[in-house]
């Protein structure tokens, strides 16, 4: 490689961006599946399930993702497994996503009015019928905007997979910078690529949110309020 930024560098960055997308999709799929279980366990009738899932969420939400990455990476290696970095990154991202998205979805399920549960019960539906046929379809509507919003967090947080040596966008930037020594330009470019990945998602989340508010306002004639579905970002 010569010391000028050229098309090969750009290609390498775009390739890194591709891996970022793949890791994000893995994290979303795995984390979503596990998170759905967490959400259900959090509203379960069994006290044990509620306590265990609460403990899990508090544990994961109280630990930085960076530390989760290190734990997955070194934890897998002491079990005698030499797995590619993407596995360690995928596992820690899955755990991280499941704890946050599980809480978001729990909030959405609980935002469905209590009377819906009671009405379904009056129709002699079983608990699982009530949940899957009455509550979840309504919760899905409420859940879409914050879920899309959280996808932005997932994409951004995959950048931490670079610490376990997975070559995604941020790592690709580091590699290129090591040969070019032009950090400002390289990292600005990397930031620009992340922005291109994230901004459409943010925009979509906002549109969905506006639409949901319009629906809600026209149905219940309530004022736009904050705090219905609170979630935070990092």
């Amino acid at each position, binding site marked *: 490689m010569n010391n000028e930024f050229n098309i090969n560098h750009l290609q390498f960055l775009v390739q890194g961006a591709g891996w970022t997308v793949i890791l994000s999709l893995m994290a979303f799929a795995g984390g979503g599946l596990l998170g759905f279980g967490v959400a259900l366990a959090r509203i379960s009738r069994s006290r044990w399930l509620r306590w265990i899932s609460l403990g899990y969420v508090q*544990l994961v*939400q*109280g*630990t*930085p*993702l*960076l*530390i*989760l990455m*290190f*734990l997955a990476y*070194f*934890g897998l290696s*002491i*079990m*005698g497994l030499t797995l590619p970095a993407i596995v360690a990154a995928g596992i820690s991202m899955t755990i991280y996503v499941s704890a946050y998205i599980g809480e978001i979805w729990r909030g959405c399920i609980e935002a469905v009015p209590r009377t819906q549960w009671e009405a379904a019960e009056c129709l002699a539906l079983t608990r699982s019928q009530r949940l899957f046929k009455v509550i979840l379809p309504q919760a899905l509507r409420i859940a879409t905007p914050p879920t899309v919003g959280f996808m*932005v967090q997932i994409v*951004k*947080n995959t*950048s*931490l997979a*670079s*610490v376990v040596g997975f070559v995604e966008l*941020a790592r690709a*930037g*580091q590699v290129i*910078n090591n040969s070019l*020594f*032009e*950090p*400002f330009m390289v*990292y*600005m470019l*990397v*930031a620009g690529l*992340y*922005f291109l990945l*994230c*901004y459409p998602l*943010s925009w979509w989340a906002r549109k969905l949110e506006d639409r949901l508010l319009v629906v809600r306002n026209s149905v219940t004639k309530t004022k736009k*309020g*904050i*705090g219905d579905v*609170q979630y*935070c*970002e*990092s």
Partner: protein
Amino acid sequence: MTYKFDFSGVLAQWPLFLHGAWLTIQLSVSATILGLLIGTLCAIGRRSHNAWIARPCSLYVEIIRNTPLLVQIFIVYFGLSSLGWKVPAYAAAIAALVINIGAYTTEIMRAGIESIHKGQIEAAQCLALSKVQVYWHVILRPAMERVYPALTSQFVLLMLASSITSQISAEELTAIANRVQSDTYRSFETYIVVAVFYLLLSLLMRTAFWAIGQAMFTRRRRLGTPM
């Protein structure tokens, strides 16, 4: 699996860990205070009728919220030094964290400010309160009261995110953990200990914020609304 856990070597380094935790607290508290200041100013700026003030504020929020903190830290640290502006790692870490949390605080404070009823502001103007008085007593304090839970969880997340500054070897808990694990060769044990430290720190921060909330928002306490 035949791995034998051995925490003795790691736990022998406890003064180092405590020192690291203290540095993390310092880092997060200074970033929180400065970030709250910037965020509040930007939230006010976004309401401005002057597009030259409102536009840059929303641009700042969009750019920061759609790029990873890791890259922001790299830009501040490596980028600035390559432009001939040499900053120490710790200062760069604080700067990057402040820039980051400022954008999130802006969004949260904006939500709070928007939730203030227009009639309240008009009533305050009728009482001949000055602009500053209206902002402080009628807009900012009640807004802050409303978004306080969201704000504090964002600040706890900031504390956790401050671990990322170890990537530019700013001195804090994770950086110290990296050092301990390369000294003791007990990486898994080291990071388990550090994870426990972070858990305790987030618990500590939540408790502190709860206490601050109790002291600051007495009206809410009297009404018995849970924080």
